[in-house]
């Protein structure tokens, strides 16, 4: 597998990478590419586009609500691929699609990967795809289309399993900050810091991004002390659901998160 944009990013910029999640088709059906372009202009490093699902059980209320709105707006995987048709003309950021397995299966797994590769997607996060099914059924398809599979780990994931996940991916490890669904706050408790350090000391071959509970500069900075960056989801959804000033709000938010970069670099 050749280096895709995700691998290139971490080679070029080994720390403080900001990955922003947003739900496709939210707040408006056609807002997907505007948000993508604005995020790139504002200085985000990666984007994770959520494919809305009726029953997103690993997500908290903010993201679930954005999923419901997007579905009511008429969003679908087919529509998303249409929206992303010419995205690579202007957007150079690594693009990851995140979504639950059922809609992907209904689209057809290989069809989905083929379309994703065609529009220039670099990686996929499918949180309810079991590792064993990945190895047996899906890995060959991911590789055929040069897509990276990104897996989650949590404070409860065993060392053996983390090593197995590290061997199976070539993008980054998605470190869930704490036992929760999305939309809570990273408190920086002793046990959390101990978990971050424990993973840091494992010397994994892949970079790590911390997600769930990253909402502001303080939590982003905390995550960047122990990992190569962080993922912001629910807090960003709250920014884009403001009724006016979408692009300006996005620029302000990204600036606030990333400002003060010199202090830690």
């Amino acid at each position: 597998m050749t280096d895709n944009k995700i691998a290139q990013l971490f080679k070029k910029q080994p720390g403080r990478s900001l990955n922003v999640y947003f739900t496709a088709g939210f707040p408006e059906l056609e807002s997907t590419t505007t948000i993508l372009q604005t995020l790139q202009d504002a200085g985000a490093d990666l984007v994770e586009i959520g494919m809305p699902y009726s029953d997103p059980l690993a997500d908290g209320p903010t993201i679930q609500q954005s999923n419901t709105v997007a579905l009511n707006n008429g969003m679908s995987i087919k529509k998303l691929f249409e929206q992303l048709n010419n995205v690579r003309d202007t957007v150079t950021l690594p693009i990851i699609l995140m979504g639950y397995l059922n809609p992907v299966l209904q689209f057809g797994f290989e069809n989905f990967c083929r379309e994703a590769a065609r529009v220039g997607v670099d990686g996929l996060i499918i949180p309810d795809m079991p590792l064993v099914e990945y190895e047996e059924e899906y890995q060959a398809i991911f590789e055929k289309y040069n897509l990276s599979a990104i897996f989650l780990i949590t404070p409860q994931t065993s060392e053996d399993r983390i090593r197995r996940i590290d061997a199976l991916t070539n993008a980054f490890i998605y470190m869930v900050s704490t036992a929760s669904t999305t939309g809570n706050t990273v408190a920086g408790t002793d046990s959390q810091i101990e978990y971050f350090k424990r993973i840091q000391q494992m010397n994994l071959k892949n970079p790590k991004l911390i997600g769930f509970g990253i909402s502001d500069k303080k939590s982003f900075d905390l995550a960047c002390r122990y990992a190569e960056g962080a993922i912001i989801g629910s807090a960003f959804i709250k920014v884009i659901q403001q009724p006016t000033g979408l692009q300006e709000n996005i620029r302000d938010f990204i600036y606030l998160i990333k400002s003060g970069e010199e202090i830690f670099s």
Partner: protein
Amino acid sequence: MDFSVDERGYYGKFGGAYIPEMLYPNVEELRQKYLDIIYEPSFQEELDELLRDYVGRPTPLYYAKRLSEKFNAKIYLKREDLAHTGAHKINNTVGQILLAKRLGKKRIIAETGAGQHGVATATVCALAGLECIVYMGQIDTERQKPNVARMKLLGAKVVPVTSGSQTLKDATNEAIRDWISNPEDTHYIIGSVVGPHPYPDMVARFQAVISAEVRQQLLYKEGTEFPNYVVACVGGGSNAAGAFYHYLNEPAVNLVAVEAAGHGVNSGLSAATSVLGSLGIIHGSKTLLMQTEDGQIVEPHSISAGLDYPGIGPMHAHLYDSGRAKFYAITDEEAMQGVVLCSRMEGIIPAIESAHAIAALHYMQLKSDDVVVLNLSGRGDKDLQTIINYLDEHDGQ
């Protein structure tokens, strides 16, 4: 063909454990330990004693004389409605609470639709002295008020769920979210043969006491362990799994699963998953579910909160797919007539869920010497308001 679960939790192509990493350690711990724990002699002894002295097992296998005359066959009702708390649900919660204690869990969560599983869970939590949180769709809390009151009286915290369709599917999502947030001290008592492996198999094993008893009781009453038909309603499918369990690999016994057609299978207000469903993933299991072309889960409808679920357990999906079980879909209207029929002909007010199974007798081509065992999964007290409303609308007839 073997209808038992395989090592990875599949029944044919259905089953598995499609769960986010946050649930993996919990589910894996269960998977590794559940069989060893439930087949320990001390566990079995404790379970048997509770089933006998607390639940009131064995439940009777009652020869329903007047129904038999009406349908011109020998109809037996397996009286799960006489089990403590009024439904078969207690068989599973008693088993799972003993398991949870052996796993060292301090906190129990559950989802409920009709409230029967919620009441059964609240009951065993009171028995075991464990904290109990029950997630229930807001709409279900309104249509099943007596069960909400029972759960609270038993010391459980009932959390009304306002997301999605505000029914069983969403209550299940919220319970899963709670489990994600409390991975170490909490056990999730799933009430049906759904969810990630090992739940469908574990719940089926706890409910299998139903068919184990039927075999013994029928031998005594009919001189054979094998009826011609076993009939049970299916939402997720736990009472059917229990009634079918010891007959799965006995091809001479016809298995009949009865789903809720709501306003009619093609009315857009239905829960007849075997007809309307297609292969997909719901609540951690690959099975048949009602979904759009885009893979979004469709809101089901049934007058019975316990059958109002857009999927079926993977075992039932396999029984349907392989033709091992025959599936019928019964409308709300037919089910309510089943309630009245059973009440007036046998003096037994059945749960609306179970009345779906009764209504299916009209569609079966029965012969006079056919022995039919119908699993009367629960009693209708909880449905009294719905039944009264129905009778009022139909001039009390």
